[in-house]
Structures are given as C-alpha cells and as structure tokens.
C-alpha cells in the first residue's frame, strides 16, 4: 500500500482537537474490561503533561448499548446525552472528551441530528428541563480520548522510556491498529484521518517507534456488534468476524494490536482464546496469541509504567512475550497482587494458548 | 440554415464531376436511400433497385424510434427529401443476372431490364426472425402472442389491443427471440431489440398507465448514447418490471391469456406469469434473398449469414468482390444511426473508387 496515497487522504480529515481543559466522561464497560486504561489516561494528561481534565461522578451511561440493542428509544438516549452536556455546562467546560467509541459515535450522531433538526434539539431541551430542571450548551469540541492522546503523542514520545522496537532485532514492532467502527465509519470527518485509513492510532504508533501493518480485512468489524454478541445464539457470528480478521492478519506476523474502542480489544483478545480452545488455532505462533492493547496501555508502556499498574494482567493473551521484545521489565511475583498488595488469586490457565 | 448545411455536407467538388459514373444500389432501405442521395449529389447516376413496391425498407413499418421517440416517418421523409428524386428507383425487381465486363458490371433485372454500371452497392439489409420458428413461444398458435413488429404496426395504427379488442392489463416482452439462440441457428445478438423492448414498454405505459409491463431479458444491452436514460426512465417513470430470465415456454388458459414460464434467475426460482399480451422481440436475420444475391454477385457470407467484409475494422464497406461495396445491416445488425453512418461512409468510399 502506498503511504503517499494515505497521507493524501489524511490531509483531508484533520479535525480540531483542543489542547487543554477537557470534560472527561468514562465508558460503562472499559473499567471492568481494562480497569487501568482510563486511570492511566488521566494520569498521563494530568501528571505527565499537566493538562486540566475535569471528571464528575454524576455522569451516567450515554445509553448507547441500550440504544444499539433496540431497548432505549432515540428520544430517551438524546435526553441522557443532553444531561451529560448539562453537567459539562455546569462545570464550565466546553471541550467534551469521552472514553468510549460507542458514546463518541452517539454524541456525533446526536449533535449532527440536532444540527439538521433544530426542533428536535428544542424538544430535548424542553424534556430535560421538565425532567431534571437542567439546561445545557452544546460542546464546542467533541473529542474521543484517543484524539487527545493523538494530539499529545509527540509529548509522550519525548518522555518515553521505551520505543515500540524489538530490542533483539532493532526493528520496529509490527503493529495492527484497529479502530472502533463508530469512531469514524458513520461520520468520517469526525475522526482523525477519516474512515478508510484512520490515522489516530497510526499516528501514535509511528510517534512511538512502531510500524503499522496493513492487511486486507483491516476495515472489518472486531465482531462485537452488540446484538451479535449479547444474544448467545448469535455469538457464532461474532466469532466468525474476529476469525476472519485474524486469518487475514496472520501472514503479516503482527507483534501486537492497538485499539481505541471498549469492545474491540476485549473481543480481539478473548476470541483468540475461544478460537484456540475450540479449533486449536493460535495466531502468534505455536500456543501464542497476539497481545491486544488499548492506546492508553501502550502509552503507559512507552512511558515506563509498571505493566501490572497498567492492568495488563487482566488480559487474556499473555503480554510477557511482548514486554520481553520491547525490553520492559516486569516482576512475575507481583503480577496477581491487587492495588492494596493483597493476592488476587491466580487464574486457571488454558491449555492451547499462552495466557495471563 | 438549410443551405449552409447542404453546402457543408456536399462539397463543391460534386458540381464539377465531368464523366458521370453509374452505380446500382441493391436494396432501398434507409442505407440504400442515404447512399443514393450522397452518390447522386456527387454527380453519379444512381439506380436504386427494390424488390418491394415501395422504398424505405423496414423503417417504413415502424412507428417511433428509440431513444428520442422521433417518428420513423419523419426520418424516412427527411431521407427521401434529401434524395430529391435524383436516383432512378426501380421497384418490384431483383437482380436476375450479373456479369463483370472489365471494370463494369452488366446487370439483368427480373423485368429483363439491362443496366451497365461502374460499381454496385449492396444494401440488402436484414429480415425479421420468423417467430413461428420458436414453437414453444406459441406465435401463430396462441392468439395473444405477437411480435415486436406487430406491436409497432399496432402503435402506428393506434390500435394496441388484445385479440378480443380489450386493452391489455398485463403485458410481457420477451427479449432475444431468434437471437443468441443456437437452436435457430442465430448465435448473434440483434443489437436493437433490447432498446426496442424498453422503448415499447414505455410506450405501452404511456398508452395504458395502469397496464403492468414485464420485460424478460437475458442481458440488457443498453449500449448506445441515451439508451441508459431510456432504461432509467422505464424504471423510474414507468415502473416497468425487469425480470432476468428467458422464457422457456408459453401456454394459454381458457380466457386466451398467455401463461409464461421463466426462471427469475436473480431470485433463483421458477416464475409463472399470466399476461394478456405477450410480445416477442424478434431479432434480425440475414435477408432471405441474401444467398441468391450472393450467388449472382459472387459475394460471400460469414457463418452467421451476414455478408463478409474485407476487413472488419478498416475496410468494412468493401466486399470480397472488386467494385462491389456493402453497407447497412446486410453486414450485421445495426441501429438506424449506425446504418446511416455506414452508408455515408460507403458512399464516400465509392466516390473515390469511381473517381480513381
């Protein structure tokens, strides 16, 4: 694939990302799946880079899972989002940043709807006012948390202790980037680099020394797809999608996968285990998977945080081989210790694939 | 305006032709008429030989022409007007005998008239496939099965009705009747039937807006300028139903409606349809007299029965015999503009031949 061609496209999709003063909202599920990611995000921005990020415990879900599962109606969802915006307004912020891709897609959709149908916006204002007495302003900017990290990627690179380079060979790590579908597939101009060749994660990986690989099914969904996973009868379909992606990337021998969505890293990670346990197939060599990371985890890694503080021990696919490649030290003894230093217990490890 | 175009079309050189040459044109369809008017303008003596009592060929039978819906009459009258009685028209005769003497030809016509000409232009045209030969389609057996030329006559007489005099509520066109059909010995595509069928479908809808119209096609060949527009109009304006499937057999019910059997190849299921009127899009075949004419003039036909040309790219107006030129549909199916262009090209070529 021609890099120049992609650069041509990236030029056309440059969104405005503010530099400071963010109103940050968390994802419903990431805290369970990748508990340290959001904490690391705040830590990097606030402590490493001295940015002002506001967070409130009063914010709720955006309603996205319910909305995409046909449970929450659109009006309800819009009112929930209006309430989030009122929290931002009340806190005096206008740069809205969210951790979740589904939320990001939903906010984009709602803002776009209100833009084209002002009457709907009026009704939502009225409904919110009646229900909660709150009022809101529309955010000036809407960023996904990965946009923010993308914005500060060079600052992180300057402070980095490690580079995404294989210390044994000296060559850049081969990284697969996977963007959440709702990041820019619905509104290409809302994502960095557009929908076809999004640049947001590529930019980070390039800045931190890695090399992005292109593979045929790069655009394909990770397989989450809400209904496809939530209903057990449909899970075979979800699995088939993930399988298709891995079959497609396998020949490129990727060292790791970086993602920016709550669902994607989870499914790309856990389905590798399911495929290994049902079909005996692994994609990172014999009994080895391809480790999957969120962008915050990768940022934390290059900044030299303790891998266990990044929550890498809750991954399915063992991360140690990757840490070894980059040369990040880790202590196997402390792997399963909680924040309070107590032993969390060691999980039962599967037979067919090397796990955490 | 008219004068300017006349002058542009016919260069002054025509006036200064000194030794007048003579040409026999066999066939007075549009190709023959157009060539005759060009050649006579160049100052040559033209004999237009016609087997029927009227000139104009098949175009005289048509009502309106695709894709512009121009009346065929108008086109033909224009052509005849341009000819301006400059050619000697010999009707109700065919060539009985032909002998080449030096560079001249001596022709004996069926009325024993002798002509000595310097060159011959063959514009014998085509014949319409006899639909009776596809017995399974029931032409001549079922009263409500007609051909496209029958329908064209009905349009001209403004009397498009079923046998019982009622207007059709449901009507189907069958494409490729006698074309692309190994079983009737016609492997070629007749080129004009697809466009004709779409044209006639629109005309039916124009006439009877509530009539349901179906076009059963194998491949829809909308190859020329504005054809695709016509097709688009048939879909968007007239809601003509297009079914990709070829008729296998037709039957008749008690009400003398036609029951047709086809496969909807896109749905992948056999399809049954009862229509009030079934129109068979009969294709083009070599003129039934072509073989006789070939034997008299020493011409050759290709395996498809249409006349061979010396070279299908650069010498497609030259026959295998020196001094005998060919133009129009006798060398393969053509649309009206193609036929006219071809006969103009032949006339130009003939002129330079005669002047050399």
């Amino acid at each position, binding site marked *: 694939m021609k890099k120049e061609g992609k650069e041509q496209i990236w030029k056309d999709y440059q969104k405005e990302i503010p530099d400071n003063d963010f109103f940050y909202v968390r994802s419903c599920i990431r805290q369970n799946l990748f508990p340290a990611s959001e904490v690391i995000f705040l830590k990097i921005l606030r402590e490493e880079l001295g940015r002002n990020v506001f967070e409130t415990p009063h914010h709720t879900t955006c309603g996205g899972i319910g909305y995409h599962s046909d449970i929450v109606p659109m009006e309800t969802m819009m009112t929930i989002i209006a309430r989030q915006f009122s929290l931002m307004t009340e806190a005096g912020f206008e740069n809205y940043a969210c951790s979740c891709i589904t939320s990001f897609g939903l906010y984009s959709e709602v803002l776009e709807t209100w833009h084209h149908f002002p009457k709907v916006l009026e009704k939502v204002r009225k409904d919110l006012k009646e229900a909660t007495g709150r009022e809101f302003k529309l955010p000036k900017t809407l960023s996904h948390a990965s946009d923010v990290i993308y914005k500060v990627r060079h600052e992180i690179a300057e402070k980095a202790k490690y580079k995404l380079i294989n210390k044994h060979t000296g060559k850049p790590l081969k990284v697969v980037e996977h963007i959440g579908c709702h990041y820019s597939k619905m509104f290409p101009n809302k994502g960095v680099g557009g929908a076809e060749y999004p640049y947001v994660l590529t930019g980070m990986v390039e800045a931190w020394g890695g090399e992005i690989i292109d593979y045929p099914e790069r655009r394909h969904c990770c397989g989450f797809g809400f209904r496809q996973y939530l209903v057990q009868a449909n899970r075979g379909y979800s699995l088939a999608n993930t399988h298709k992606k891995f079959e497609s990337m396998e020949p490129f021998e990727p060292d790791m996968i970086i993602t920016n969505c709550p669902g994607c890293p989870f499914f790309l990670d856990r389905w590798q285990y399911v495929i290994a346990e*049902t079909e005996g197939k692994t994609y990172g060599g014999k009994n080895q998977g391809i480790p999957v990371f969120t962008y915050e985890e990768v940022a934390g890694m290059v900044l030299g945080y303790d891998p266990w503080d990044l929550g890498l021990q809750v991954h399915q696919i063992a991360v140690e081989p990757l840490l070894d490649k980059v040369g990040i030290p880790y202590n196997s003894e402390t792997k399963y210790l909680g924040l309070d230093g107590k032993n969390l217990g060691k999980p039962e490890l599967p037979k067919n694939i090397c796990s955490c | 305006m008219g004068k300017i175009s006349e002058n542009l079309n016919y260069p002054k050189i025509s006036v200064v032709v000194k030794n007048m040459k003579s040409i026999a044109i066999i066939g007075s369809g549009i190709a023959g008429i157009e060539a005759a008017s060009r050649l006579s303008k160049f100052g040559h003596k033209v004999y237009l030989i016609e087997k029927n009592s009227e000139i104009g060929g098949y175009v005289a039978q048509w009502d309106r022409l695709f894709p512009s819906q121009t009346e065929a009459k108008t086109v033909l009258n224009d052509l005849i007007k341009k000819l301006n009685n400059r050619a000697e028209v010999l009707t109700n005769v065919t060539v009985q005998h032909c002998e080449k003497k030096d560079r001249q030809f001596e022709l004996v016509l069926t009325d024993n008239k002798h002509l000595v000409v310097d060159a011959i232009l063959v514009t014998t045209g085509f014949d319409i496939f006899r639909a009776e030969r596809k017995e399974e389609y029931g032409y001549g057996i079922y009263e409500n099965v007609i051909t496209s030329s029958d329908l064209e006559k009905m349009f001209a007489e403004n009397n498009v009705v079923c046998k019982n005099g009622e207007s059709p509520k449901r009507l189907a066109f069958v494409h490729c009747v006698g074309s692309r059909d190994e*079983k009737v010995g016609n492997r070629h595509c007749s080129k004009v039937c697809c466009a004709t069928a779409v044209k006639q479908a629109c005309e039916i809808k124009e006439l009877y807006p509530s009539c349901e119209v179906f076009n059963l096609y194998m491949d829809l060949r909308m190859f020329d300028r504005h054809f695709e527009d016509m097709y688009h109009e048939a879909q968007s304006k007239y809601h003509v139903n297009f079914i990709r*499937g070829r008729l296998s057999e037709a039957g008749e019910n008690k009400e003398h409606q036609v029951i047709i059997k086809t496969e909807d190849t896109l749905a992948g299921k056999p399809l049954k349809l009862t229509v009030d009127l079934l129109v068979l899009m009969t294709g083009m075949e070599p003129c039934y007299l072509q073989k006789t004419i070939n034997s008299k003039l020493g011409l050759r036909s290709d395996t498809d029965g249409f006349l061979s040309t010396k070279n299908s790219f650069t010498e497609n107006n030259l026959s295998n015999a020196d001094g005998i030129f060919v133009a129009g549909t006798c060398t393969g199916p053509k649309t009206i503009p193609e036929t006219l262009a071809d006969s103009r090209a032949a006339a130009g070529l003939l002129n330079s031949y005669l002047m050399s």
Partner: protein
Amino acid sequence: MINFGYQRNESATLDLDTTHSELYKKLLDKEPSAATCISCGTCAATCSAGQFTDFNLRKIMLLCKRGDMQSFKPIINRCMVCGKCQLACPKGVNTRNIVLILNKYLHAGKISK
C-alpha cells in the same frame, strides 16, 4: 476442546481463493458445452423437477463453476433426466449430460477421465 455453547459460523463467502472448482474442470473436460451457459435460466424455467423442489440447473452450474459443490450435492439427483431443458436451451448446452456427470461424481464418487 471446550464447548462454549456456540460455534463459529462458517463463512458464507464464495471464497475463490480457497475453493477450487476441480469438479467444474472435470465437467468441462467431459462436457465442454458447460462453458457456454449464459445463465439465462431457461432450463430452470422449463424443469419438471424444479416446480416441486429446489433443483435449479442454472444455479447448480453457477455454484459448480464457483467451486461450491456442497450446497447442491443434496439436490443434484432430484432431476428426472427427462431432457426438456436440453430441448429448450438456446445455447445448445448438453444440460442432461451435465446433470449425469455431476450425479456420477457427487453420488457415485467416481468420474471416468
């Protein structure tokens, strides 16, 4: 191997990279006219068996060309071999022989060279 209560769905893609139309090549070798089919559907329209079953020669030939034998294997012997399709085919394809060859291959497992 663990049973999770669900299985990965088989791909519905006609994957021409991994499937090989061996059967079609054999078919062409034995019945060259198979190559001249234009998928017009006349055979399927006139078919006696097709009125009652999913037997559809046009589709079968297409799937055979695409290397997907499994999907028509169960129905290929539904044909009564009456030859009506052959009489109706505008391209002179030996449809009957095609059915017989595919049958021989898929149901008897042998096909003479």
